[in-house]
């Protein structure tokens, strides 16, 4: 696979028998010999270790919070040291350029952005904050699942008392790790930024813990979908507003109309108006009634025959933990929960119910 980049764990993936695929410019493990379904279930039952080293890590001075607020509709100035928050870069049309995590490390803010967007994001960030640094020499691991705390705490006892969305620096074997209690599977767990030259060593330590198995991108996708979480480029993109995407919870009052730092980010006019009046369409959960998955691109209709599509599936598949298919689609916001719609799969309109998300309950450490 020429022209593709590799993370610091590439050799370890091969050693573990991973099937490697191109993803966002990287050669990444889509699955290990366990297989997607069992890897998914293993993460929900015990603990899964994910290589997310392809994602971008950017550091900016903590004093740049105000400059960052000009790019994102969330309260960055209100983020306390040791805390992390979900955010998104918006565009002038009120769409989403990328979604990210912002973590306060004390002196600096750590921004973790999607692999496919990281170059564009860095251009955007450094135009606003010239001191911004892309950290290319650190890997990123995620340890997720009910066994994550016990496994990580055996190496670093201090992580056990962290709460959801807290971040702190830890010393491991002379190496500084930045660990947050967060993830993208709906499970309790941690994300660990580790110097690239120690990433494989640390991953091996974790894999040696009982119950920890390596998990590929295939299960990462079904886990995040069951958790109702958005995948950039599929469920959210430059044409979807955060309000349509159901992400208004991430916009704090202080950035909304009447707030002390109201607006001042790209697309504020549309986004703040949609917050007050409600969007015309909304990202909704769908539970297909049969077993047939409704995948990305499946058109949704209001009736079993005729009429124009009322939306399109943005992510869909089979949920191993719910034992049934599940999908997300942008649909008219006024469709009530429980309404039946029809997805056209291989020329047949199959019924699906509009349901709340997540499909599988979150188990964050609040």
């Amino acid at each position, binding site marked *: 696979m020429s022209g593709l980049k590799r993370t610091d764990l590439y050799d370890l993936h091969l050693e573990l028998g991973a099937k490697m695929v191109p993803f966002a410019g990287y050669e990444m493990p889509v699955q290990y010999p366990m297989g997607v379904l069992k890897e998914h279930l293993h993460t929900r039952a015990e603990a899964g270790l994910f290589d997310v080293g392809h994602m971008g890590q950017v550091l900016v001075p903590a004093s740049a919070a105000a400059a960052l607020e000009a790019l994102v509709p969330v309260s960055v100035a209100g983020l306390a040291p040791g805390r992390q928050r979900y955010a998104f870069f918006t565009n002038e049309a009120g769409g989403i350029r990328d979604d990210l995590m912002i973590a306060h490390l004390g002196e600096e803010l750590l921004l973790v952005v999607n692999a496919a967007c990281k170059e564009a994001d860095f251009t955007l960030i450094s135009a606003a904050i010239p001191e911004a640094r892309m950290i290319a020499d650190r890997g990123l691991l995620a340890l997720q699942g009910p066994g994550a705390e016990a496994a990580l705490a055996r190496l670093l006892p201090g992580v056990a008392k962290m709460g959801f969305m807290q971040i702190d620096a830890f010393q491991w074997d002379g190496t500084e790790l930045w660990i947050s209690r967060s993830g993208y599977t709906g499970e309790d767990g941690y994300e660990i930024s580790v110097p690239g030259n120690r990433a494989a060593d640390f991953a091996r330590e974790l894999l040696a813990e009982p119950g920890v198995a390596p998990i590929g991108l295939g299960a990462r996708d079904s886990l995040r979908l069951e958790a109702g979480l958005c995948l950039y480029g599929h469920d959210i993109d430059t044409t979807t507003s955060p309000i349509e995407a159901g992400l208004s919870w991430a916009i704090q009052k202080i950035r909304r109309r009447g707030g002390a730092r109201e607006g001042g980010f790209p697309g504020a006019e549309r986004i703040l108006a949609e917050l007050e009046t409600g969007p015309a369409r909304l990202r909704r959960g769908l539970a297909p009634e049969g077993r047939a998955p409704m*995948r990305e691109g499946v058109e949704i209709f209001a009736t079993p025959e005729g009429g124009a599509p009322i939306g399109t599936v943005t992510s869909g598949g089979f949920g191993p933990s719910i034992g049934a298919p599940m999908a997300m689609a942008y649909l008219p916001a006024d469709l009530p929960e429980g309404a039946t719609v029809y997805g056209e799969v291989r020329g047949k309109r199959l019924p699906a119910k509009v349901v709340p998300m997540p499909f599988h309950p979150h188990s964050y450490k609040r």
Partner: protein
Amino acid sequence: MKFTEEHEWLRVEGDLVVVGITEHASEQLGDVVFVELPEVETQVAKGDDCAVIESVKAASDILAPVDGEIVEVNEAIVENPALVNEDPLGAAWFFKMKLDDMSQLDEFMDEDAYNDFIG
């Protein structure tokens, strides 16, 4: 047992031919989560879409390997799609066909030729 380039196997059973997918195919597909089978008494021509398999990764069509009539389908794999991964060459057969002409089987690979084919 005969094998097609589309990774199906065919086994003669009296005057019928039983059709399934190979172990190689089931490994490549990954965990199967949904199977749709044809109606019995359907007349199919070689190359017609006649069944659907969906794995955790993607949907794939199963093509009719020969001309003939579908006379029986295996509801067990509709009820339990995981059977396709567990026993692709045995319990997870897909359908049985009555062939218009049994000599259609002559063109297909034997096991050694198929193993060479998948390398």
